[in-house]
C-alpha cells in the first residue's frame, strides 16, 4: 500500500466529527468518579460524615468497572461512523451504569459501615449525584439521536427508578436516606398526600378561575391591560412575602368571622398557602388561555362563521379544540410551578414535602432534605412529561398548516 494512502487524508480528517456532547459528558463523569468523594460514612445522624474516594468505597475493581463503561461509551461516540447500533450501544452503557450504581452502594455499605453500630449510616456522595445527573443528560441526548418515543423513555426511567427503590428497600438499610425514611414512614406518605392535594386543588381552582378571567378579558377589552399587569405583579412577589402578606388579613378574618374560623381559615396553614398558590398559578393559565384562543387562524374562524356555525358552535367546536395544546402548555407550566411552590408553603404550616426540607435544613440533616426534595423532583418531572405527552398527542391530529 502506498504510504500516502495509509495516512489519514485531509478529507478523512475533517470528517472526524465525534459526538461532542457524549464525549464531554463522559469526560466529566470520569472526573467525578475519580475526583469526588463517592460515599460518606457517619457514626450517627448528627456528626458529619467522612468522605471516601471511589477506590475505597467501591474498591479498585468497582472504580475500574464504572470507568470502563464510561470509556466504552466515549469510544463509540468518537467513532466516525454514526450508526444506529452505535447509539443503541451508548444508550445501553448509560442504562447499565445507572442500574449498577445502587449495587455499588451496597458494596460500599458492606465494606465501610460497621454492622455492629446500628447508628452508623452511609451517605450518597457528590460523585454519585454528579454521575447520575450526567448519565441522565446523556440519555436525553441519545434519545434524540435514536428518536425514541417519549413513552419508552418514561418506561425505562421508571424501570431504573424501580431497581433503585428495590435495592434501597431490601438491602440498603444503612443508607442515611433510607434511615430517614424508615423513621418517619407514616409522616412521609402523609406529606405526599398533602402535597398532592394542595397542588391539585390549587391548579384545578386556578384552571377554572383563570379560564374565566381569560374569557372576560376577551369580552371586555379594557380589563386586559390592568388584569395582566396585576397578575404579572403577583408573579414577581417572592412567595414567602406573599404568604406573609396573606397572614394578617386571614388571621383577622378568622378572628372576626366565626364561619371562616369554622371552615378552618387561619392566618397560617393551608388557607394562605392555597390562596397564594392560586394567585401564582393564575398568570400562566390566564396568559396561555388568552394567547391560545387568540392564536386560532382567522381564516379558520372566518370559514366557520361563513359556513353557518353559531357563535357557541364556533367557540366549542373550533376555537377551543384548536387552542387546547397551548392551553395544556399553560396547565403544564402551572403544575410544575405549583409542585415547587408548595414546598415553600410548609414554612407557614401547610404541611407537604417541604416540611422535611425545612426541618432537615434546621437540623443540618441533608438526607432529610433529600427525603423531601427527591419526591418533589419526581412529581415535577412526571407532571411535565405527562401533560407534555398529552399536548403532543393532541397536536398530532391538529398539526397546523
Amino acid at each position, binding site marked *: 500500500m502506498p504510504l500516502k494512502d495509509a495516512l489519514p487524508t485531509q478529507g478523512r480528517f475533517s470528517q472526524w466529527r465525534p459526538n461532542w456532547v457524549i464525549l464531554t459528558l463522559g469526560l466529566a463523569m470520569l472526573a467525578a468518579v475519580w475526583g469526588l468523594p463517592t460515599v460518606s460514612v457517619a457514626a450517627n445522624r448528627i456528626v458529619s460524615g467522612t468522605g471516601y474516594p471511589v477506590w475505597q468505597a467501591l474498591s479498585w475493581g468497582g472504580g475500574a468497572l464504572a470507568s470502563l463503561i464510561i470509556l466504552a461509551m466515549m469510544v463509540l461516540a468518537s467513532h466516525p461512523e454514526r450508526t444506529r447500533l452505535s447509539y443503541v450501544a451508548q444508550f445501553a452503557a448509560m442504562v447499565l451504569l445507572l442500574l449498577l450504581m445502587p449495587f455499588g452502594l451496597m458494596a460500599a455499605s458492606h465494606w465501610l459501615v460497621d454492622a455492629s453500630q446500628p447508628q452508623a449510616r452511609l451517605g450518597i456522595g457528590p460523585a454519585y449525584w454528579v454521575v447520575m445527573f450526567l448519565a441522565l443528560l446523556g440519555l436525553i441526548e441519545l434519545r434524540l439521536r435514536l428518536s425514541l418515543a417519549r413513552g419508552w423513555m418514561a418506561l425505562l426511567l421508571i424501570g431504573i427508578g424501580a431497581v433503585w427503590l428495590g435495592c434501597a428497600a431490601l438491602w440498603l438499610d444503612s443508607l442515611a436516606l433510607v434511615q430517614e425514611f424508615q423513621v418517619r414512614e407514616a409522616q412521609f406518605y402523609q406529606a405526599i398526600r398533602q402535597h398532592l392535594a394542595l397542588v391539585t386543588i390549587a391548579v384545578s381552582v386556578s384552571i377554572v378561575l383563570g379560564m374565566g378571567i381569560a374569557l372576560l378579558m376577551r369580552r371586555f377589552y379594557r380589563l386586559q391591560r390592568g388584569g395582566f399587569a396585576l397578575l404579572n405583579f403577583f408573579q414577581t412577589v417572592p412567595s414567602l412575602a406573599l404568604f406573609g402578606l396573606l397572614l394578617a388579613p386571614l388571621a383577622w378574618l378568622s378572628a372576626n368571622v366565626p364561619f371562616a374560623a369554622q371552615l378552618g381559615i387561619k392566618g397560617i396553614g393551608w388557607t394562605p398557602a392555597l390562596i397564594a398558590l392560586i394567585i401564582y398559578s393564575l398568570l400562566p393559565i390566564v396568559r396561555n388561555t388568552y394567547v391560545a384562543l387568540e392564536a386560532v*387562524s382567522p*381564516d*379558520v374562524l*372566518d*370559514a*366557520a*362563521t*361563513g*359556513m*353557518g*356555525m*353559531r357563535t357557541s*358552535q364556533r367557540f366549542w367546536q*373550533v376555537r377551543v*379544540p*384548536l387552542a387546547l395544546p397551548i392551553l395544556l402548555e399553560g396547565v403544564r407550566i402551572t403544575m410544575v410551578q405549583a409542585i415547587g411552590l408548595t414546598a415553600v408553603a410548609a414554612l407557614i404550616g401547610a404541611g407537604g414535602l417541604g416540611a422535611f426540607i425545612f426541618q432537615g435544613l434546621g437540623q443540618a440533616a441533608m438526607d432529610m432534605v433529600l427525603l423531601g426534595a427527591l419526591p418533589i423532583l419526581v412529581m415535577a418531572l412526571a407532571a411535565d412529561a405527562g401533560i407534555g405527552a398529552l399536548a403532543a398527542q393532541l397536536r398530532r*391530529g*391538529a*398539526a*397546523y*398548516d
Partner: protein
Amino acid sequence: MIELRNVYKYFDDTVAVDDVSLSVPKGKFCALVGTSGCGKSTTLRMINRLLAHSEGEILLDEQAISDYDPVLLRRRIGYVIQNTGLFPHWNVARNIGLVPRLLKWPASQVRQRVEELMQLLGLPVGEFANKYPHQLSGGQAQRVGVARALAADPDILLMDEPFGALDPITREKLQEMLMQLQARLHKTIVFVTHDMDEALRLADHLVVMRAGKVIQQGTPLSLLQKPADAFVDSLLGGLERGLKQASLTRVKDHMAPLGPTLPAQSRIPARYTLRQALSMMLRDHSERLTVVDQHDMPVGELSLRKLVKEAHSSEQGSSRES
C-alpha cells in the same frame, strides 16, 4: 338570483364599497375583478352577512337579506376562501360534512353526501377521507374547500380568490374542474379574483372594480371589445386584448362555407378558438384554414382577411350600441 342595489360599506370614515349595483341571475357565474384593496372581498362578504352593508339593498331571490336569519342564510350559501379555512383538527370527511351536520341531516345521509362530493371533486374516498388538512397539497385542500361549500347543495356559491394561492398548473386544473362542475350544477356564483385571465376564462359576467366603485360590468366579450377606460384596458392586458378576445371566440362562429376554390392545406377543428386558429396561420404561413368537424371532414373555411374585417365591424357595432 343575487342583486345589489346602490350598496355602500363604510369602515369608520373610509369607504370600502361605493355605490355598487350588480345582479347575478340564477345559474350565472359573476366575477369581481380588481387590484387588491378595491373592495371585492368586502362586497362578497356582505352577501352572506359576514359584514353588514352600510347603505343600499342586497336581495336574494327578490328578498332583502336582512329578512333572513344570518346563520341560516349562510348555511344556504357555499363559501370558499383563499387559504381554504379547513379545520385543521378535523379530517377531510368531517370537514366536508360540516354544513349537513349543522343542518342536522341523519348521519348516514351525511356520509353518503360526503362520499358523493369527494368523488365529484376527484378525491378518492379511501385515500382522502381520513386525512387531515396538513397532509394535503394546496390543490387537494382547495378541492376539499369546494366540496365543503357544496355539501348542502346550496344554490349560491361565494368564492374569494379560491385559487389565488396555488401554482399556475394546479390553478388551471382547478379552474377546469370548476367549469365542469358549473356546467353540471348551474350554481349562482360570485367569484372574486385579481387575475383577469381567470375571470375571462370562467365568468359569464365580469365586474371590474376600483377604489370601491364598479368601473365597468358586462360579458367578457363586451369588455374586451370596448373597455370603459385605460384602467380596464390595462387590466385586460392592453395590446394582448385582441388575442384574449380571440381565445373566447370559437372557429365555428366565424367560418365561411366551403368555397369553390381548393381547400387550404392546414386543418383546424371547428370547436377550437380563433386564437388557436391565428396561431396556426402564423405557424403554417397560411392565410386560410380548412375547418373540419370531429370526424376530420371539411365543413368550412376560415380566412385571415375575413377575421380581421369581422373583428373590426363587431367593434364598430358594439360602440354604436353603447
